């Protein structure tokens, strides 16, 4: 079958996903397991990005994660919006957003690679840290509200003795979790690129933003984020196995989904320990 634009997007999602898995899990290990997020200060990043290997590693990760997220978000919008005009417009907005954030992240990596000054041109801008904190807080609030909404919905259906419909099917959960984690990771990535932009412009403010990760209100969101990245990576691998090794049987799909959920829960535990201990 000839792949048109939708086909190319589908293949890109699969290939970029496979390539980004090792990079994102490596990034997660360094930032959430080997170190507590609040300890990844500008000094930490300076040492890290003084090695060209880590600069290339993080840049390729940024490129693949942003473009993978771009195509994924395009699918989310295509499923939610029926108007062709709105879809076209959102495609354009997403492309501009991805290009802009790729440029911001790339500039940050290149500039920090050349060394850091104690102060940058934005070091005196007092509004930046509260703004980034508000963005992270909003992301955390949406995450918590989503959890509450899910629990309330299922309790209400149980009380009213209404069937849970397709939510009794593992595939529905696998897909919905993949989508929800993908959306969450994409928006966190955007906020993350913004705080990385502070490294060359205002390293003191970058350190203040990183210190916010020790805020108790944000900690559950950070744990959820680690879980989201692990789940998204493992379920992406699961899709590859099902789709490219002809394993589309119901039992294989159920079994692999159970493994993905179990592995996610087990792998998140050490990061909780690191986060709580590291503050």
């Amino acid at each position, binding site marked *: 079958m000839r792949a048109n634009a939708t*086909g190319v997007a589908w293949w890109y999602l699969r290939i970029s996903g496979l390539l980004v898995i090792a990079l994102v899990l490596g990034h997660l290990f360094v930032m959430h397991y080997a170190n507590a997020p609040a300890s990844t200060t500008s000094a930490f990043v300076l040492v890290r990005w003084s090695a060209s290997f880590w600069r290339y590693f993080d840049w390729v990760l940024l490129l693949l994660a942003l473009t993978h997220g771009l195509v994924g978000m395009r699918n989310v919008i295509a499923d939610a919006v029926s108007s062709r005009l709105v879809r076209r417009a959102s495609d354009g907005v997403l492309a501009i957003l991805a290009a802009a954030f790729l440029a911001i992240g790339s500039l940050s990596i290149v500039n920090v690679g050349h060394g850091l000054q104690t102060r940058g041109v934005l070091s005196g801008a007092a509004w930046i840290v509260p703004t980034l904190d508000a963005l992270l807080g909003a992301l955390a609030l949406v995450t918590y509200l989503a959890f509450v909404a899910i629990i309330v919905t299922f309790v209400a259906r149980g009380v009213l003795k209404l069937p849970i419909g397709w939510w009794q099917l593992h*595939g529905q959960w696998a*897909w919905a979790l993949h989508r929800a984690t993908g959306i969450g990771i994409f928006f966190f990535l955007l906020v993350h690129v913004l705080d990385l932009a502070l490294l060359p412009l205002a390293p003191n403010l970058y350190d203040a933003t990183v210190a916010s990760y020790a805020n108790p209100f944000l900690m559950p969101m950070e744990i959820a984020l680690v879980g989201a990245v692990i789940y998204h990576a493992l379920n992406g691998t699961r899709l590859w196995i*099902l789709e490219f090794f002809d394993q589309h049987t119901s039992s294989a799909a159920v079994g692999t989904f159970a493994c993905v959920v179990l592995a996610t829960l087990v792998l998140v535990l050490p990061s909780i320990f690191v986060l709580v201990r590291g503050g």
Partner: protein
Amino acid sequence: MSLRTTFRILRYDPSTDARPRWATYTIESKPKFSVLDGLFAILETQDGTLGFRYSCRAGMCGSCAMRINGRENLACRVRLENLGSTVTVEPLRSLPIVKDLATDMTPFFEKYRKVDPFFVGDSPSFAEPAPEPLRVDPSRPLRQDANRAIDCISCGACYSACPTVSANPAYLGPAALNRAFALAADERDRDVDRLARVSGPEGAYGCRSVGNCVSVCPAGVAPLAAIQLLRRGKTVGAS
């Protein structure tokens, strides 16, 4: 030994009702009673206005597909003794309701027709003698994949369970794409347009790989596997 079963049925008559409503009926069922038997018991003894569709009563025609305890299945194949004391029955999703549990299958079959769901052979020529029939090796993996795909009974269970169909009404759906694969994997088929018809965003690449279609198919077909083989170009023939 009889079994008391309460049916909660989502009822809706578009000509008189503003919105669907739940109706409750309790029946005394016998061993091996199916959900369809239960619906007949209600129709015959409690409410003659209950609407549902059926035909073969043997799990072959696909007419009695509906949502039983939230999951798509054939009413004639599901035994009440396996469902507990309360059974919830709803019509298929993503299709207009004709009355109660009977849905209008027109959108389903309109999409089915879009993939040329019929075999297209060599044009017969009376001027020349018929060519030797093509020999098809039944052990070929692609032939076996096609064999699995042709077991579809077009009941619409996969169409109802698919969240992509629900989100995007233009999406062809698992049954139509499964049929397209069954024919595209047939060495004898000569339809040159079929693959082009299923390659757009409404076709195989529009599928989100959820897999509900595989979970609910009462005939044991795996439409998602067929869709994936289409996406990977695992087809043969002129198409």
